[in-house]
């Protein structure tokens, strides 16, 4: 599919996603080696988005498994459809009567029924969940296992088996092997340590906040109408917020939301009032908001050129003097 790492970059960029070298290389390697990728990093840096654009760029279907506490095999792999089985039994009652006609003992009746067991435990009555869907799919798929750190340790162990061989065994049916090996992306917000065994089987991708330059590219791509100067200022502010000691730093998705908000509000120039009014798009904790506001007031004296261009000349002159 991809011949060089450059191809990956082009394909992902065509899906309006800006991959770093790191991301492009890892995706390329995953394609070539058929290994799952484990993407870790703060929330909202585009880990889930990567799976989406990866699937789109390769023309595969995306199958998503959202992990949560208490997720188990029946929710992730397959479940027998009891209701349907029951319904069929009811409807086939006459047929069953025929089958059991002329039976003398209970044991014989049970034997005859057992011989027909296969009908009821076939893929007809199986409800495939995301993992099984990905494995049995006719066409190649991309499997996104989102927020694996939220699932329990036991589920992680179970997942290992699936990820290493791409096959699952259903006691009643035997082993089901993958027709096409799915491309797997696991994401984790690092709320707990994942097992070493899982990490060993994956290529590791640490997605961090983008650099100012990359973030500006992203903003230009996602919010095309924003004036370039405003975009520049917005990115600078976000980057500065990330440098501060906050409970939760603004993520890329929040930067995009903010940029969209600025565009909607038809802001021409990023002054202090605008920032104050829209800061809650970026920061979601009251404590963080207050801290950011205080920092901005403090900065007012030293970095006036960023927010109001009033005394720029003498300001820069003073700095040179220092």
């Amino acid at each position, binding site marked *: 599919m991809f011949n060089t790492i450059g191809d990956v970059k082009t394909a992902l960029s065509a899906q309006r996603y800006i991959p770093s070298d790191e991301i492009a290389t890892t995706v390329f390697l995953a394609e070539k*080696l058929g290994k799952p990728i484990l993407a870790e990093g703060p929330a909202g840096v585009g880990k889930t988005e990567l799976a989406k654009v990866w699937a789109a760029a390769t023309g595969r279907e995306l199958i998503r498994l959202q992990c949560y506490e208490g997720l188990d095999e029946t929710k992730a792999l397959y479940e027998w459809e009891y209701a349907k089985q029951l319904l069929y039994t009811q409807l086939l009652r006459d047929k069953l009567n025929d089958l059991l006609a002329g039976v003398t003992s209970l044991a014989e009746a049970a034997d005859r029924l057992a011989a027909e067991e296969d009908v009821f435990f076939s893929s007809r009555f199986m409800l495939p969940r995301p993992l099984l869907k990905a494995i049995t799919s006719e066409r190649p798929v991309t499997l996104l296992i989102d927020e694996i750190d939220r699932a329990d340790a036991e589920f992680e162990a179970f997942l290992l088996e699936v990820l290493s061989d791409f096959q699952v065994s259903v006691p009643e049916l035997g082993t089901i092997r993958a027709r096409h090996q799915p491309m797997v992306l696991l994401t984790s917000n690092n709320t707990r340590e994942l097992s070493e065994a899982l990490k060993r089987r994956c290529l590791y991708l640490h997605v961090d906040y983008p650099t100012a330059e990359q973030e500006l590219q992203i903003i230009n791509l996602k919010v095309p109408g924003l004036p370039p100067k405003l975009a520049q200022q917005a990115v600078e502010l976000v980057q500065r917020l990330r440098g501060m000691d906050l409970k939760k730093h603004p993520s890329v998705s929040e930067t995009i939301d903010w940029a969209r908000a600025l565009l909607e509000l038809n802001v021409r120039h990023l002054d202090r009032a605008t920032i104050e009014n829209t800061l809650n798009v970026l920061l979601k904790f009251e404590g963080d908001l207050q801290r950011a506001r205080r920092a901005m007031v403090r900065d007012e004296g030293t970095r006036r050129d960023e927010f109001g261009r009033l005394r720029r000349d003498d300001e820069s002159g003073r700095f040179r003097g220092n």
Partner: protein
Amino acid sequence: MDQRIVDFIHALRAKGVRISVAESIDAMRCVEIAGVADKQFFRSALRASLVKEPRDLPTFDELFPRFFGLDTPPPLQQPGSGMSPEEREKLAQMLQQMLASLSPEQLRRLFEMMMTGQGMSGSQMRQFINEHTTATQMTTGFQPWATRRAMRELQFDRLEQLLQELLQKLREAGVSEAALQQLEREARENREALAQQIGREVGNGLQQREAEERRRRPVEDLQDRPFEELKYQDDDDMRAVINRLAAQLRTRVALRQKRANKGMLDAKSTIRANLRYSGVPLDVRHHRKHLKPRITVICDVSGSMRAVTGFMLMLVYALQDQISRTRPFVYYRTIADVQADFQRLRPEEAIRVVPERVQGGPWQTSLGSCLETFTRDHLDAVDRRTTVIFLGDGDDHMSPPNPRAFEIIKRRAHRVVWFNPEPPYRWGREDNHMHIYGPMCDAVHHVSNLRQLVAAVDGLFS
């Protein structure tokens, strides 16, 4: 190149990055696919296959340029490029003479390398250093020092003197001054290259030795050693032990939880769930026990208790996925809620800063008044589903025992458990009030080493 990557993996392991054989094979395959032409891609390929922990990324970034960067020492060159054939003949002759009579052996080898330009490979050089010097017996932190020591033991500074000697002889033999000057310059460049190579190999040697040491050190023993001896242990080692113990506990708890699922039949839920099967109980529901404890830990951070408090908190935070809520408090002369620190920092860092949150000095533990403060300000941290863990020796140097406050906490809590690292014969002596608080607790555990601590924590989940 393969050898270089293997060396790199060894160095990473020496720095405490855990890399399995499977991962190193992956790394080789990745490099094969990504190619070595573009350094950025090469680097990402190695990084994706070798480093699986964010905290190991700085180590990778630090070591990568050392192995694949531009600062690899320049190759040695053959000196005497500007000489005529006869002069070169003379040089070879003189050099032979000098080498024949030169001792010690290691200096002879160095001088030979410098003057002929035939150097050693990295591993040969490392062996050479190991054989002739004691530099690699030191620890990695002292690398510049170790390098200087290796140089001294190899008598590296005598090379200059030998060079001058050789030049003098050649001059006497009538070699032209221009050729001599060039020879001198080339020999000096070779010497610089050698010095760089020695420095690097000393570093590699140190790392290699450290890696072996690490492998040899028995981790198992740490479990049975008293806490006081553990606090000087390497952070990484301790974290590894704690993580392993946490994983053990987790599987144990998970297993128990699985079995506990088959509790009492939940009739209401079963009927509701099976309405769709026309009342045939196909899907049998059971009562689930509430197995995720809420924990409030109240830790003594006086000097003697700091080590065990650190371990306890590390263990509790390694088990976060098994606990529905943790509220940590620390006390000394005063008591403080340190939840904010644990939300802001990683547990290891938080443990380092929390003792500063409270006041107190030697012999100033004031448990009684801390309990008073706790019942006044922090009772919201205790409800009927909370297990309150006291971690302390029960000493109180400043205030009388406060069973009334303790009773208030106990009445609100699901359970009150005391972990005490002091041996039981000391309980109740002098300033120790364990004999008052102990009988009021639901359980008292004596925890003087990791094994006992793990057993005690395990008890919380049953």
